[in-house]
């Protein structure tokens, strides 16, 4: 036998041996207690204060924890805190200007040192440092001081009366980080603390073993986790990258992964995957509403730098300032069709910009769920908009011709095409435009294509609010929030509509403590926005994730990190 033959026989033997071993490996207990999570956006950093991206916040939520979480119904559950402070138990001061949290006793960090109120105070100071560029700064709005009263008590003081004092340290956006680890990372230094940002020490059920930026994280169970016997999984892998459809496939069809996040994929694609019966879809209906924003100011390009500016009401839109037109546009839309085509089980029709929590949801607008093009046509006829030879309505030389923009996304373009047809039926002409999401949502004051500049008649996107309290969200439609050069177009009242009653309610809302009054005011504010059709709500959107059939204990949570109760997950 010559050398070449010997070598090739050897090669075959090696191959066979490897194959045999590879296949004979039993599915051991270790594999069984390993959790595979797939997020199609890869995690960049494990410090939620420096990111703001949902993927980063959720990956970090397995390690660092807040004082309290929101549960799947929007209620609060204490995590590191012993109880939720309220007016009744004295945790919230009578003047609503401070809140005092008590920590559970004997909680330790994964490195064995005790958690104290000083860590909480430090976490606040870390985020509130003006050079830090902290993404969770909005959670600390109006905070004047965060101080540790003793090792287990921390008091947060506000500059103004805060009827809803649960901004700081509630929910995964603002967790507690370890002072010992981060004390040299304050302010501008935060950018340079790579080891800390990639491997925060936490109190949560898992600790970071290995982090590869924009790729993968390996976790192992935190042996010092406060609840004995948890987490059930000994190790976890958090893989990132790819696209939503293939992430869904990895859970629902090939079964390689146990959990996949944020699967906005065409409903028929998901249905086909679910038919493989290896896993199921999870829906969480939070506060996300896909809506049309109706420009109340004139966006005509001949206006130059006066385009889409409110200018104290002297720059009204040529036809969208007519309530009859706005009402007709809303009446003509068959929301059920939009849901069926673009969203499936992940969407419901809605007529509110504030659809949840249930206590805040207005019941006054349900009629819009039934489309009524006949009534829409009648309204337009009555208002004097007569159809021209080409079927498009005009009045005094003004044509009902709409430029309708949104971000580039196949579901959104599908919705655009459907709405264009529905409006054609009432004699409204529509020109469609889509803009890359990074530009549209980019807020670059030099770009004419941002959603804030709004150089169009109607635009569409989804918005929601953090946590369960809509105060900041609803205040965004106050008249003084109109975008314009005075605020680098960073205002939040994108429709640029104004109502004195609304502005008064914003004031009132900011001093009303939780209870019936607060709910009633929020509903009224919602009604003003949607009954004037400044905003036309379309679809109440769920966040969609998928889990394998073997995974138990997942409670899909639209109000907080989806991984909020990962300590309870098991097989």
């Amino acid at each position, binding site marked *: 036998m010559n050398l070449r033959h010997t070598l090739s026989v050897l090669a075959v033997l*090696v191959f066979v*041996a*490897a*194959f045999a*071993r*590879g296949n004979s*490996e039993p599915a051991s207990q270790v594999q069984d207690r390993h959790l595979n999570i*797939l997020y199609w956006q890869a995690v*960049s*950093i494990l410090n939620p204060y420096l*990111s*703001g*991206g*949902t993927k980063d916040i959720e990956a970090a939520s397995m390690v660092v924890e807040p004082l309290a979480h929101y549960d799947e119904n929007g209620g609060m559950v204490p995590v590191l805190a012993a109880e939720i402070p309220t007016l009744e138990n004295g945790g919230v001061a009578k003047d609503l200007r401070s809140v005092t949290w008590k920590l559970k006793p004997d909680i330790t960090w994964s490195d064995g040192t005790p958690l104290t109120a000083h860590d909480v105070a430090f976490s606040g100071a870390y985020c509130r440092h003006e050079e*830090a*560029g*902290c*993404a969770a*700064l*909005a959670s600390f709005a109006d905070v004047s001081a965060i101080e540790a009263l003793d090792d287990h008590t921390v008091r947060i003081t506000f500059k103004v009366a805060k009827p809803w004092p649960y901004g700081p340290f509630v929910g995964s956006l603002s967790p507690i980080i370890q002072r010992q680890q981060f004390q040299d990372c304050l302010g*501008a230094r935060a*950018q*340079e*603390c*790579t080891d800390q*940002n990639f491997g925060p020490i936490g109190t949560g059920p898992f600790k970071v073993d*290995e982090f*590869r*930026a*924009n*790729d*993968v994280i*390996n976790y192992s169970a935190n042996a010092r986790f406060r609840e004995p016997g948890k987490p059930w999984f000994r190790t976890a*892998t958090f*893989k990132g*990258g*790819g696209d939503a459809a293939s992430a869904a*496939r*990895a859970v629902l*069809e*090939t079964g*390689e992964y146990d959990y996949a996040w944020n699967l906005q994929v065409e409903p028929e694609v998901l249905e086909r995957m679910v038919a493989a019966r290896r896993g199921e879809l999870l829906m969480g209906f939070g506060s996300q509403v896909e809506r049309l924003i109706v420009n109340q100011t004139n966006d005509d390009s001949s206006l130059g730098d006066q385009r889409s500016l409110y200018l104290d009401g002297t720059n009204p839109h040529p036809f969208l300032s007519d309530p009859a037109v706005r009402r007709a546009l809303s009446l003509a839309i068959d929301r059920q069709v939009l849901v069926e085509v673009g969203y499936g089980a992940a969407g419901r029709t809605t007529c509110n910009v504030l659809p949840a929590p249930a206590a805040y949801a207005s019941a006054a607008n349900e009629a819009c769920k039934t489309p009524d093009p006949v009534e829409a046509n009648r309204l337009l006829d009555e208002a004097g908009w007569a159809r021209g030879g080409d079927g498009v309505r005009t009045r005094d030389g003004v044509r009902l011709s709409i430029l309708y923009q949104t971000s580039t996304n196949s579901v959104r373009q599908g919705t655009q095409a459907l709405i264009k047809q529905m409006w054609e039926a009432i004699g409204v002409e529509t020109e469609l435009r889509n803009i890359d*999401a*990074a*530009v549209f*949502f*980019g*807020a*670059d004051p*030099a770009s004419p294509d941002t959603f*804030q500049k709004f150089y169009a008649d109607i635009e569409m996107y*989804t*918005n*929601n609010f*953090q946590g369960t309290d809509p105060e900041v969200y609803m205040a965004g439609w106050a008249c003084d929030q109109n975008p314009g050069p005075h*605020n*680098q177009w*960073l*205002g*939040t009242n994108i429709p640029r509509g104004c109502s004195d009653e609304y502005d008064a309610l914003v004031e009132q809302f900011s001093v009303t403590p939780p209870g019936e009054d607060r709910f009633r005011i929020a509903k009224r504010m919602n009604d003003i926005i949607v009954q004037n059709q400044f905003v036309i709500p379309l679809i109440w959107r769920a966040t969609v994730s998928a889990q394998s059939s073997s995974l138990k204990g997942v409670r899909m949570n639209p109000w907080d990190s989806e991984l909020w109760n990962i300590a309870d997950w098991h097989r």
Partner: protein
Amino acid sequence: MIRFITRRLMFAVPTLIAISFAIFALLDLAPNDPTGQLPLTIPPEVRAQIRDSLGLDQPFHVRYAKWMEQFFVNEPLNLLEEAFDIEIGASSERPRIRSWATRSPVVDIIAERMPQTLWVVGMSYVFGILIAVPIGVISAYRQYSWFDQIGTFISMVGFSVPTFFTGLLAIILFSVMLQWLPSIYDTTHEVTDLSSFWVQVKQMLMPVMVLALYNAAQLSRFMRSAMLDNLNLDYVRTARSKGLRERAVLLIHVLRNSMIPVVTMIALGVPTIFSGAIITEQIFRVNGLGQLLIVAIQGADIPLVQTLTFLFAVLIVLFNLIADVLYGILDPRIRYD
């Protein structure tokens, strides 16, 4: 030869500076924003603070000068420090190029990604060459035979069907229907024994083969036509009439001469290994340099995009030079001086 190389290297410096400026200016002019992908619930004034903390409040020329300093001075110094375990000056005060998304040094991320890309994309390149050369040789030698026709058909398929199609097809066939191979590449997998080696082979199989098909398709056409050019030349007839065995004529005389343009092609293609196969990496989640680039572009992570694209530019300039030098070594008729 030495003079030629030094002259070319000196020309490369202004070229690269011009390229770096062009990349920086393009990225700066692009209407993109690092906070653009953040949830809308983050208010505008917080976004403004985030942008300031990333240094975006400074004017264009200051940012460009800073990047130049970091790339050409600080990073090389840092490399030296790490290589020899020494400290040059106040190294902790020297700013490094940091990614905006991860806040970690860009060079470290690139170094972490390099192995995956070199293994998967490099391997596919090697396989592509190993498949393409014999196919090219035989197709040319037996022109218009069945083998040639089939080879032409396969390389046409490889040419015209994009990898995002063949990749998905492979996943649906081997992962979804047959369940033989994993559809997601595990970048943390370590080869320690035979069974883990087998796992590695299984997870590399699909991406490597999909890319190899694509590479082989291009190269085999090139190989075939180079062989055809040579087969009809006088020296081949001379060799045959000397009584050389057909095998020696083909594999020693014709193949060597035909390899000259093919080797140049292969050398010019090497930079594309580093830039990764963006689409294939994304489909199989190999998460190498190509995936890194695409994530960085989507997230407007300008320091990372800038550094990566500039490194690719350096590689392209370098391998162009190597191809030219190889040409001279392979073909003694070519003289540079």
